[in-house]
């Protein structure tokens, strides 16, 4: 084991951390908004069919093919190259981010749907009786209960998205995996380099697991054998 090489490699790979974090957090935020929209669409038949098809397509195909389809595929359409979107869709960063958002939305919307199903009807009726509007019920009753129910499943999704960001390295982006991949072709010391990268991802995902366990305990302490504060 060559310690100077490994510590140098850690520093080198960490320069990709901001891009990884950027893609991760923005795709989660974008995905969450889109997931909520998809669930709100499910209230009528056409909307339901659209949302169901969307989820079917994005959950049934690999993320890698979605990334390539957006990055390489969309450029083949003349009207896209002429449109105002082209400066964005030409850039691997925006293509990668878009693919991650679309993919995350499909998974998150199913998780949220599970959470929404668990909201007791009585709670919504109580809100209606006390004169709340639809938006208020959504904001103050439905969403808080649903997100609490969905939290354990969502924390898994948060970790999968961290892992998913590694795939943008295939469209030339220099995130942590991209840097590792470039370093491999320079030095051919694959095992050391890949283990360095793996350790960084592992630390972040363990922090997420800890944070979500802490949040769950805080939100419903009675489930963990503690008395209500």
């Amino acid at each position, binding site marked *: 084991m060559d310690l100077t090489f490994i510590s140098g490699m850690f520093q080198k790979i960490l320069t990709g951390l901001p891009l990884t974090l950027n893609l991760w957090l923005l795709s989660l935020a974008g995905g969450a908004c889109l997931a909520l929209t998809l669930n709100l669409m499910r209230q009528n038949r056409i909307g339901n069919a659209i949302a169901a098809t969307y989820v079917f397509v994005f959950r*049934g195909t690999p993320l890698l093919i979605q990334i390539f389809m957006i990055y390489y595929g969309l450029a083949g359409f003349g009207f896209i190259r002429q449109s105002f979107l082209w400066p964005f869709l030409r850039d691997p960063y925006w293509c990668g981010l878009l693919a991650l958002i679309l993919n995350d939305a499909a998974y998150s919307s199913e998780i949220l749907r599970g959470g929404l199903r668990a909201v007791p009807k009585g709670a919504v009726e109580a809100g209606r009786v006390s004169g709340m509007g639809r938006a208020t019920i959504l904001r103050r009753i439905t969403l808080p209960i649903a997100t609490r129910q969905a939290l354990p499943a969502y924390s898994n999704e948060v970790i999968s998205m961290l892992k998913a960001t590694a795939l943008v390295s295939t469209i030339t982006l220099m995130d942590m995996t991209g840097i590792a991949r470039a370093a491999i072709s320079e030095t051919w010391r694959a095992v050391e380099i*890949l283990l360095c990268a793996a350790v960084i991802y592992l630390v972040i995902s363990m922090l997420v697991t800890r944070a979500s366990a802490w949040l769950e305990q805080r939100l419903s302490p009675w489930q963990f054998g503690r008395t209500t504060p």
Partner: protein
Amino acid sequence: MGDIGLLGFGPDGWGLVLFRAGLMTLAVSVAAFLCGLVLGTLVAWARVGGNRVMRALAEAYTVVLRGVPDILVIYLFYFGGRQVVAAIGTALGFAGPFDISGFVAGMLAIGLISGASQSEVLRGAYQAVPRGTIEAGRVVGMGRFTLFRRVIAPQAMVTALPAMGNQWQSVIKESALVSVTGLVETMRQVSVAAGTTQEHFLFYAAGAVIYLIITTLSDQVFRLAERRSLRGHQGAGY
């Protein structure tokens, strides 16, 4: 939008090539899933019935594989496997260059990833087996292996089946990552076809459809298996 005839089975069509690539995706997925099943069973066993060291090792394995991107694991097996094979080969006096098959690297890597989540599923299924039935088996004098085969496995399988269906679905999607090793499965083949014909959207869309067909068909198979496994259960609703 390009010429849809490119996807046909004629002399200029890529249909046959894509069909073969789809079979390769299926083959590497099945191999990886079975790898994961063996590994998952062993790890679940270690976590349920192992001693302290085995439990710790099994837990570390699931935590690590859950937190590391799949593509890094595949790179590790592909490049690392090449390093190992080269080292062994040189030590044994063979002349290079050494290479490792993308199929084997992909199968092992995805098997390892899938094994981590399959072990969680299997552990949950084992814990759902009613204790009384295990005790009853022990009382009538069954050995450990017989007990597993005749009492635990049949009951745990029923519980595990829906979640195992999900595991299989993710294995299919992860198999696309094996394309980075150069194995000619669906993802790799559509990339090649897209590059050759410059019809990127058409071929990536075709690839997406191939994956959708595989995932949808296997979903049906798992549903059938689920229904079959529930025969004779009260309140199964079929």
